[in-house]
């Protein structure tokens, strides 16, 4: 099927038409080691985060940007605006640095779940904690990036939807929300073409990098971010007990790890009339052709 054709149309049953157009966005964000920095594993086989700059996960910026754009096109967010955008993060106290970037871009406030007991939590445990916080937040829609650039699991959005019992619209390349009609529509690009999907609110959406180009925080935004609230909550605050999370309670564990082998020198093919054959046999050896 040609690229660009709509190949599927999956409908959920609507719960009913909403009376209000206000949308409470909740965007999940994570502080990660700079995606471009060399990463090292510590003695406990976990990522050494100390020696690397910590930044807002690049892919989360697309989710924040999408929430901002939707708000800007339909009544705005923040003071005097119709909608609200809350950032939700789980991480150490210093994760506020990454959160501040999201607030500088234009989100209204943030919740950081920070607790010693969370250390070493896997995606399953993380989704449990985030889902609890989402339930309590009254959010209408949860937006996520597709993955974090450190762990690259790509499963938290789906896990959140499952735990919340909400529809999930993942890997969105386009997102439309008609709040009054209680309808969220996404387009998902696949190898076969474009899938169009609809769901009712509340729901979980993850967005891909093609959906927009995140803005740079403006200086006014940076200065305004200082006055915005980052509410820190403990595990007890969100209603999860310490023995449900952390490395001991995680379902996945790192058994072993090895450094990437150093790059070996490439093969130089000197074209003496047989260059084409050489290249094809090289590619065939690698099972590329």
């Amino acid at each position, binding site marked *: 099927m040609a690229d660009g054709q709509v190949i599927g149309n999956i409908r959920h049953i609507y719960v009913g038409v909403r009376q209000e157009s206000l949308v409470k966005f909740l965007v999940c964000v994570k502080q990660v080691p700079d995606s471009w920095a060399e990463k090292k594993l510590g003695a406990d086989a976990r990522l050494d985060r100390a020696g690397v700059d910590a930044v807002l996960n690049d892919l989360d910026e697309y989710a924040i940007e999408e929430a901002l754009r939707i708000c800007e096109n339909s009544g705005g967010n923040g003071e005097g605006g119709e909608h609200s955008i809350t950032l939700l993060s789980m991480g150490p106290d210093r994760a506020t640095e990454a959160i501040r970037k999201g607030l500088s871009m234009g989100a209204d406030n943030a919740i950081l779940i920070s607790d010693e007991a969370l250390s070493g939590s896997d995606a399953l445990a993380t989704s449990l904690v985030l889902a609890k916080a989402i339930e309590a937040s009254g959010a209408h829609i949860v937006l996520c990036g597709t993955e974090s650039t450190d762990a690259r699991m790509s499963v938290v959005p789906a896990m959140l939807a499952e735990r919340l019992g909400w529809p999930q619209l993942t890997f969105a390349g386009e997102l439309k929300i008609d709040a009054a009609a209680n309808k969220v529509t996404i387009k998902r690009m696949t190898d076969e073409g474009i899938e169009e999907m609809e769901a009712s609110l509340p729901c979980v959406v993850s967005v891909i990098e093609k959906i927009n180009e995140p803005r*740079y925080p403006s*200086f*006014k935004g940076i200065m305004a971010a*200082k006055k915005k609230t980052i509410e820190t909550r403990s595990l007890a605050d969100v209603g999860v007990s310490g023995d449900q999370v952390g490395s001991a309670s995680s379902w996945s564990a790192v058994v072993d790890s090895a450094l990437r082998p150093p790059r070996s020198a490439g093969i130089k093919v000197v074209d003496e009339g047989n260059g084409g054959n050489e290249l094809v046999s090289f590619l065939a050896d690698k099972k590329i052709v």
Partner: protein
Amino acid sequence: MDPKSALDLLSIDHLLSDEERDIRDTVRKVVDDKVRPYVADWYEKGDLPARELAREFGKLGLLGMHLEGYGCAGTSATAYGLACMELEAGDSGLRSLVSVQGSLAMFAIWKFGSEEQKQQWLPGMASGEFIGCFGLTEADYGSNPSGMITHAKRDGKDWVLNGSKMWITNGPIADVAVVWAQTEDGIRGFVVPTKTKGFQANIIHKKLSLRASITGELVFTDLRLPEDAVLPGVVGLKGPMSSLNEARFGILYGTVGAARDCLEVATDYALSRIQFDRPIAAFQLTQEKLANMALEVQKGFLLAMHLGRLKDEEKLHPDQISLGKLNNVRMALEVARMSRTILAANGVTLEYPIMRHANNLESVLTYEGTSEIHLLTIGRALTGIQAFK
């Protein structure tokens, strides 16, 4: 032991507030994304997509960023300095665009303009919709602007402007020019829409410095302005001089950025360039160069930070700006030349930023007060004797 970054040997980052760091990091990212990949080509062509960049910078809040109100961001002076540092790490031409817009043209209107002038021009200049320039220097009156020939005469209620200005950054692309001219009362500033009949701007070609910056000559021929075109808030050289102090402040930070960029490139190059089977960074003469440069860049940054804090407390004296500008431009020029020796032949190409910075800094040494005048200003501060006129 891991090598310590030559760029923050003294941990000067600790002197910055979170907000200042965020602003600095944002400008650095914008320069990385929107300037670095293209600037060598702009430089080679001798052109700059100034309007596009001005709009991009306007969205961030870079233009007139340290001014309050009228759509300006209202940051600290230190934050403005740090932004200049990142821009000039990209290219002095970029910093010039922003200096002239914010510190010269916008500042003069903001400080000395009428409420109507501010409302008319500042929001559009802050957003990058309007580009401004600043006409003070003339072909024969550089360090001695009080002798300027350009003059404005009353004709009924109107003003009639005649004369010309030289070396005007942004001149040929500007929507509005702040022009200083002799009047019966002394030197006055005029807000001149560049569409006004009698206004002509000629591009200055064949520059070997600041090629990623648009420079021009402004010519005024019986240019008629309404009564309210004059800046009401100032008479005399104090007007243009206070604007220049704003711009010089940006330069004393900006040049640290250019020097830092040279040092960064030279360090990377020295570590990867192999001669006699070892990286040239392993040779003592190279290490001496790198150490001396790191020392100077760090000192220049500390000096800038000190002056930035003074400015934020409104305690910065023009003599101190002279000292900062003189030192940091000289320092950056030396660092650029020294870095060039590490890159050897590669250093003279546009593949690396070194020669571009070095050539730019030749202009920066001269504009916004020549190094000679800044020396004599410091001399006057020490002795009480003015030696330059």
